[in-house]
């Protein structure tokens, strides 16, 4: 299993990515860490042609996607070139610790 880590609410089953001490939906502090399956759908995607830091600039740019995981939350990932909204993807954590979406 190499999917992104999420938090899960033991009371209402809501799942999310950003670390919190309690559930953003119901307020329960019964929060546990779970590994996401990595399966999801592209909610949106962009090819960044002008990076915020010059050391990140690469010819042709790089893709960034927002992926809605089957577990519920939407997370930001690096994206394989050419992904389109609605495509099924697998999100894995790369060696550089960044999540990346590739066609499922």
């Amino acid at each position, binding site marked *: 299993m190499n999917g992104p880590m999420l938090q899960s609410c033991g009371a209402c089953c809501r799942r999310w990515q950003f670390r919190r001490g309690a559930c953003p939906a119901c307020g329960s502090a019964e929060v546990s860490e779970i590994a996401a399956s990595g399966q999801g759908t592209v909610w949106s995607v962009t090819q*960044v*042609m002008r990076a915020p830091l010059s050391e990140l600039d690469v010819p042709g740019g790089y893709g960034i996607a927002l992926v809605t995981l089957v577990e519920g939350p939407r997370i930001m990932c690096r994206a394989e070139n050419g992904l389109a909204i609605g495509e099924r993807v697998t999100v894995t954590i790369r060696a550089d610790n960044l999540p990346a979406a590739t066609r499922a």
Partner: protein
Amino acid sequence: MAFLTGVAATAFGKHPGSDAPTLMETAARTAITDAGLPLEAVDGLVCGYATTFPHLMTATVMVERLGLKPRHAHQAAVGGATGAVGILLARHLIAAGACRHVLVLGGENRLTGQSRDDAVKTLAGVGHPVHEVPLGASVPAYYALVAARHLHETGASEGDLAELAVLMRRHAADHPGAQLTKPIGVDDVMASKPVATPLKLLDCCPISDGAAAVVVSAEPGQGASIRLAGWGEAHTHQHVSEMPDDLGLGARMAASAAFERAGRTASDMRLLGLYDSFTPTLAIFLEALGFAAPGQAGPMARDGLFGRDGHFPLNLHGGLLSYGHPGVAGFLAHVVEVVRQMRGEAGTRQVKGPPPLAYCHADGGVFSSHAGFVLERTA
């Protein structure tokens, strides 16, 4: 009751050698004079942050510099919505009886006071430090993600978004203070350098130096009476990863509250001052707030609906996209133009009327914080 009694904006663009306090001082003194007030009458200050002047107490710096003796002063930071939230805060301070004349102030040398890399890096910091910024996302990338989703949902095209950039440039051409005035067409926008797909350079506002100020008062003051008739805020998320699926939700929440308090609807408005950091920002606002059908903001702009002679004249100074964007002063310049139009003081840009009702709206972050208000000319 609160009234917008004094407004001022410097030219936007390059002000080499002027730091943030210098630019803010110019706008502040001009706005106080415009309100017809002696300095000692100003008893409140809401001062924006400045990225080129990262001080813990910018408001107090400006109190000292201007020689104010306020009963309330503080620095506000709600990103691009700071000026709008500042005007609402001023209204609340007046309603609470804490102040009678509140100066809302913003300005900085964002263009010449730092490198382009520093500016872009600072702005990218509105992203999540663990889950967004390390991916190489930038503010244009965050808005590009929302733009791509908007185009997907509405069937609008990049060319439709480009119409909004063309419109802002046309409006800026009539304002001597605007940063970008060279006429452009849809083809120029489409051919401009890609930044983060679907956004090209001309879909993005420039970085600018400049300052703007608005005085909010307990009484109308001299000349036309411009009353703050309704207001609303919404804060739905900070990071685009947690943005609601409904892209227009926060904007609609804030606007609904504002219209309800004013006892008006969107269709009553005769002038708009809407935040336009990127063309999709403007498209989503126009469509979420009921000024255009979904996906139709661009085509309706092309048809003249948002021009000076249209039904909903929009950002007649050129907006952030062409008048310019120096941070907190960016949206305040929209308010300055709206008030001048409502007073009938906009010269060659003047809308017939002058317009009796206007709606102003800004967002901070990535559609994160919203503040909107209805202005009504009551005399």
